[in-house]
């Protein structure tokens, strides 16, 4: 078969596929729906037939393979190639997004993914908690130790934030409203979470660094304030949102450690493939981290800083939040029965 015969024989298929693709792509982009083809007499064709589209796609694949193998003129091959490419994008695109997907993520995927990374979570928790306790102990023994972590002015500011006279807890005097602090917490804390994750790309060193660094900072401030006698103000402030915030930071760090581990010990994959798989698995954890840090920012701005709530109430609610978070990560989304596990697997 000569190229010309080939073209004239199959051109009708290609045109049909082209039309179908034009329509399908326009349907996905409703703005331009009635813009082109307004003057076309065939403006109201029958609804798009998925089976026909798939058939046309397979035909165009076949034609492309033939054209390439027989070294047909390049303009012909290119036309088929771009046609096949468009159809490929359309047919294999994912479209299971939306609320159902979000529900699945919150109720099943995120807690399951966290449990799948439990050893990374343990490592991240230790990397965070041990420096935190050590720094806390050091500044509690000797409040002057805080000057290794912050300068004198900042230490003064910590004092002011949790002073008995402070109008709202946990913020310096010039930062005004709850809303502003909410914005600040969103920006600042989620940023830290993302850094803990992204740092994993440097063989995990970045994640380790950010976990240890944040642990030392938080522990140092906590120990300092305890030693200065602000413990009730401080702990009643942090207990509630800490349940979400500290957990989320550790989770982000665990996700980063997984990335680093994939690069260092790729197992039976190439390093690149291992990294891709690790990123695909851990991004689910990162979704959860974002959600938890948003919750934490809202609590921190509107609940934790409120002076009118008695510390006892805050401890109660805070304890409940810790239990809630641990129970959620530990048990939510487990298959109910053995058959359920088989289905999920």
């Amino acid at each position, binding site marked *: 078969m*000569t*190229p*010309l*015969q080939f073209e*004239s024989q199959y051109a009708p298929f290609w045109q049909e596929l082209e039309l179908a693709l034009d329509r399908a*792509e326009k349907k*996905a*982009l409703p703005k331009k729906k009635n813009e082109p083809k307004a003057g076309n007499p065939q403006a109201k064709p029958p609804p798009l037939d998925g089976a026909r589209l798939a058939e046309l796609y*397979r035909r165009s*694949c076949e034609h*492309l*393979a033939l054209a*390439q193998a027989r*070294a*047909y*003129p*390049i*303009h012909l091959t*290119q036309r088929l*190639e*771009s046609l*096949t*490419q468009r159809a*490929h*994008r359309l047919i*294999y*695109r*994912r479209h299971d*997004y939306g609320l159902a997907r979000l529900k699945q993520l919150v109720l099943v995927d995120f807690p399951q993914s966290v449990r799948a990374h439990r050893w990374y979570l343990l490592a991240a928790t230790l990397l965070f908690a041990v420096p935190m306790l050590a720094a806390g102990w050091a500044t509690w023994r000797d409040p002057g130790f805080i000057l290794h972590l912050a300068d004198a002015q900042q230490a003064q500011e910590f004092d002011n934030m949790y002073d008995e006279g402070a109008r709202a807890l946990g913020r310096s005097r010039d930062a*005004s*409203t*709850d*809303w*502003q*602090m*909410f*914005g*600040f917490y*969103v*920006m600042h804390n*989620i*940023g830290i979470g*993302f*850094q803990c*994750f*992204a*740092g994993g*790309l*440097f063989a995990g060193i*970045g994640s380790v660094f950010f976990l240890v660094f944040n642990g030392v900072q938080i522990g140092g401030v906590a120990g300092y304030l305890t030693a200065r006698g602000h413990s009730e103000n401080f702990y009643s402030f942090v207990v509630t949102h800490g349940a979400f915030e500290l957990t989320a930071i550790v989770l982000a760090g665990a996700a980063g450690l997984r*990335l680093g581990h994939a690069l260092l010990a790729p197992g039976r994959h190439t390093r*690149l493939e291992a*990294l*891709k798989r*690790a*990123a*695909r698995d851990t*991004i689910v954890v*990162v*979704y959860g981290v974002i959600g938890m840090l948003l919750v934490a920012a809202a609590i921190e701005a509107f609940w934790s800083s409120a002076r009118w709530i008695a510390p006892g109430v805050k401890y109660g609610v805070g304890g409940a939040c810790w239990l809630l978070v641990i129970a959620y990560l530990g048990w939510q989304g487990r298959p109910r029965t053995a058959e359920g596990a088989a289905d999920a697997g």
Partner: protein
Amino acid sequence: MSLDTLYTAETPEGIALSLRPAGVVPRVLAYGIDLGVRLGIYLAATLLALPFGGMGRALLLVTYFLLEWFYPVIFELTRAGATPGKRIFGLQVVMDSGLPVTPAAALTRNLLRTADFFPFLYAFGAVSMLLRRDFKRLGDLAAGTLVVYSDNVALHGELPSAAATAPARALVPREQAAIVAWAGRASRLTPARLDELAELARSVTPAQPGDATQRLLGVAQWLVGRRGGGSP
């Protein structure tokens, strides 16, 4: 090894699709434009938010956060698959399977921007892009994404018309393909260059009237199946 940087993605049907990855320069320029756009949005938001006090400042901080981390994610998930800057330079983010980018991949590649930025001014990202044939930065490597030119360049057009003539000797498939490809590029080459190339194939063209270009175009027409004056 071929000189061009075409990236081949295989479909489940066993078809190889070629994508054209975009290099450092257009991506840096696109990033610059995006930076400008983000700055513009931020300034506009500042002007709008200032009269609202604390609430306004909250919105401003959230806006800043969203612009910093989610501006590229949101734009890459639109149909164009590109931020405004990328769109200006005709770029697009796709999965390395040639499919539209998924939300998970878009988020991954943009969160890992931090690693690409390290230690300053995207140094790691730039090194990674320069070392690889497919110009992936670290975020692209982990997410399995690729920044490509969204349009294909058509270097080859229809064959120019000429009276079909049989070649003087039997041609092997490689020679046939070369002659047809030469004819397909006729619209992009200068007549002089076209003629120069045609001279190289002198052994193929029978001694007929007309210059070398016309005779070889005739052979090309003959090769794609045209006989005599007209129809295939």
